[in-house]
């Protein structure tokens, strides 16, 4: 597996596509800017959302139990899963009971996190992602490169080719409307035939035992309304205390995500309709571990709007797959080390710490500060390559000793002035595409000494 820097380098090789990717996502960020500035209360809304989430996380156990009891009263079957494996097994056991061989699934980052598709496919169940972007990446045997726009790394030409291969659309046809219609017709059969529909959850309301699913395509609703069994999968951090809190989050979510005022569908699921079975699976999968870490707790406030992706200058120029995680971008980089530190040691370093992410975040997660904290945590755990720890120790030693610093600076400038080939070569990553700064004859300190 390539690390972030290696994968990015490959991505950037196609300069034109990188420009297109960057500009497409910047367009989304600009739309977000426009609509957020139409609300004078925007910053107050962010603060309110942040406080509600802080409060909920501080009392998470109590709210989960309240939610469970109210959902059960509504006739929903509630399951608890401590990790991805347990979650996948629960889903499978429900499907087995109903004898389904195919199920429809609307977008759910949690099921991506749990690798549910892979698990069910191995058990002989066909999973059909019904979100258009998800279906495209599923055909291509890829993972989403963005949590809101899963196929944003692809151009319409790419989609045309994929649909030609899998849906038999005419070769070379790249008309978005035509291709979308082809996908609709293709998915219609699955919607009508599936016994089981899986959806994600955007918000679960403790007070009422209902959950809310926000989509633009209506595919979650179509699946849930047609199937005999509806399984909703959610991370335990999706909880909010009261229905009235929803107003705060629904106003922030779509504006932050795509610059829409609200998602096309904000569907409330409170109880199964007659003859339907409704299940909800509450998944921990490392969330309580993160909850216990002071520095990283508030990463659990995330409402998955992806504003931090769209604003991130690194993400826009490296693409989602360079993060090698279901959730990419800045938020993914602070969530991933919680799952596996050594496999994700590169991600907190895939940032200039510019701080844009923290300031677009609708729930005020201090993302760039957490990136910094993860860097400390991972290096303390000894996950740095040997060369890096040695050079850091060397630098720390030099900067602790003014005489050595002055000597090293003097020698360095001497080398750069009289033997520039020692630094201007392919072993110096700075020099590959940039000139080195010009080395002056004397340092400021030596100039200052002679000035008096």
């Amino acid at each position, binding site marked *: 597996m390539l690390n*972030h*820097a290696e994968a*990015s*380098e490959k991505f*950037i090789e196609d300069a034109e596509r*990188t420009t297109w990717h*960057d500009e497409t996502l910047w367009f989304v960020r600009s739309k977000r*800017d426009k609509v*957020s500035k139409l609300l004078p209360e*925007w*910053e107050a809304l962010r603060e309110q959302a942040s406080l509600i989430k802080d409060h909920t996380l501080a009392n998470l156990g109590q709210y989960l139990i309240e939610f469970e009891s109210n959902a059960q009263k509504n006739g929903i079957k509630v399951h608890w899963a401590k990790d991805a494996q347990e979650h996948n097994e629960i889903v499978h056991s429900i499907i087995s009971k109903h004898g389904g061989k195919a199920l429809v699934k609307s977008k759910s980052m949690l099921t991506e996190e749990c690798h549910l598709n892979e698990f069910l496919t191995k058990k002989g169940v066909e999973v059909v992602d019904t979100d258009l972007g998800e279906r495209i990446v599923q055909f291509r045997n890829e993972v989403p490169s963005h949590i809101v726009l899963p196929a944003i790394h692809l151009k319409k030409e790419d989609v045309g080719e994929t649909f030609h291969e899998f849906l038999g659309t005419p070769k070379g046809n790249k008309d978005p409307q035509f291709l979308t219609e082809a996908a609709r017709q293709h998915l219609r059969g699955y919607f009508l035939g599936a016994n089981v529909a899986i959806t994600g959850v955007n918000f679960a309301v403790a007070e009422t035992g209902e959950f809310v699913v926000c989509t633009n395509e209506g595919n979650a609703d179509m699946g849930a309304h047609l199937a005999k069994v509806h399984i909703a999968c959610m991370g335990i951090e999706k909880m909010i205390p009261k229905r009235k809190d929803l107003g705060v989050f629904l106003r922030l979510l779509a504006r932050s995500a795509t610059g829409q005022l609200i998602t096309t569908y904000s569907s409330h699921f409170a109880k199964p309709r007659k003859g339907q079975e409704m299940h909800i699976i509450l998944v921990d999968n490392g969330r309580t571990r993160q909850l216990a870490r002071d520095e990283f707790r508030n990463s659990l406030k995330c409402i998955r709007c992806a504003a931090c992706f769209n*604003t991130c*200058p*690194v993400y826009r*120029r490296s693409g989602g797959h360079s993060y090698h995680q279901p959730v990419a971008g800045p938020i993914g980089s602070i969530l991933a080390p919680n799952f596996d530190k050594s496999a994700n040691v590169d991600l*907190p*370093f*895939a940032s*200039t*710490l*510019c*701080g*844009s992410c923290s*300031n*677009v975040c609708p729930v005020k997660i201090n993302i760039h500060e957490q990136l*910094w904290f993860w*860097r*400390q945590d*991972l*290096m*303390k755990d000894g996950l*740095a390559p040997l060369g*890096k*720890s040695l050079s*850091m*120790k060397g*630098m*720390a*030693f030099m*900067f*602790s*000793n*003014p005489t050595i*610093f002055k000597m090293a*600076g003097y020698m360095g*400038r001497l080398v750069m002035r009289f033997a520039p080939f020692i630094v201007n070569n392919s072993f110096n*990553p*700075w020099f*590959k*595409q*940039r*000139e080195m*700064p010009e080395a*002056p004859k004397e*340092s*400021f*300190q030596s*100039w*200052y*000494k002679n000035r008096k």
Partner: protein
Amino acid sequence: MRVALFVPCYVDQFYPQVAVATLELLEKLGVEVHVPSNQTCCGQPMANAGFASSTEGCDTNFFKNFEGFDYIVGPTGSCILHLKEHHPSEKIRSSVYEICEFLVDVLKVKSLSANFPHKIGLHQSCHGQRGLRLSSMTELNEAPFSKLAQLLDLVKGVEYVYPERADECCGFGGTFCVTEEAVSVRMGQDRVESHLKNEIEFIVGGDTSCLMHMEGILKRQGSKVQVKHIVEILNHA
């Protein structure tokens, strides 16, 4: 008022003219400036690379050089932000100032004798802008302001313009500039390109590290456009 000039390590070694301009400008404004001679580095290169635990010697050295001053002023937003957020001494954290911040908030400068008859592109460095809040940012719903622009308004002849995406990062990012070389350079190239679209003669900012990065890219492209630290403009007669 005891004021010390903090000269970050790489400014001392590679951009002495930035420190000279800072010193001269403060002196012109009637400030008696001390320059502790055994200063080295703020510790940020190690800390941002994940080795904050190794900066003890560096922090101690900084403390020894600067503990006796009311104000510690330096010409780089990034180093100042690091000290403000991470130096172990409360005394140090509360006395460090970025130069523009110091001129506007402490000295409350209302006039300068500077003259710089050129068109410049203003680069708002992230750590100065979002970290030290030297200017407003497009991410937030807030009234626009900029301490850098406020100071440039006091300079005769200068015309400053912002690039498209006024506060996008240039991609320097400390060790990021070599560990993520491809992204870093691409970000820098994009930043430089949007400045060049404005037909400027100089790219000007408050953080020498961003300028060093963009200068490296400009020079590799053979561009005539130069970089300058804002103090070099404010001190330009």
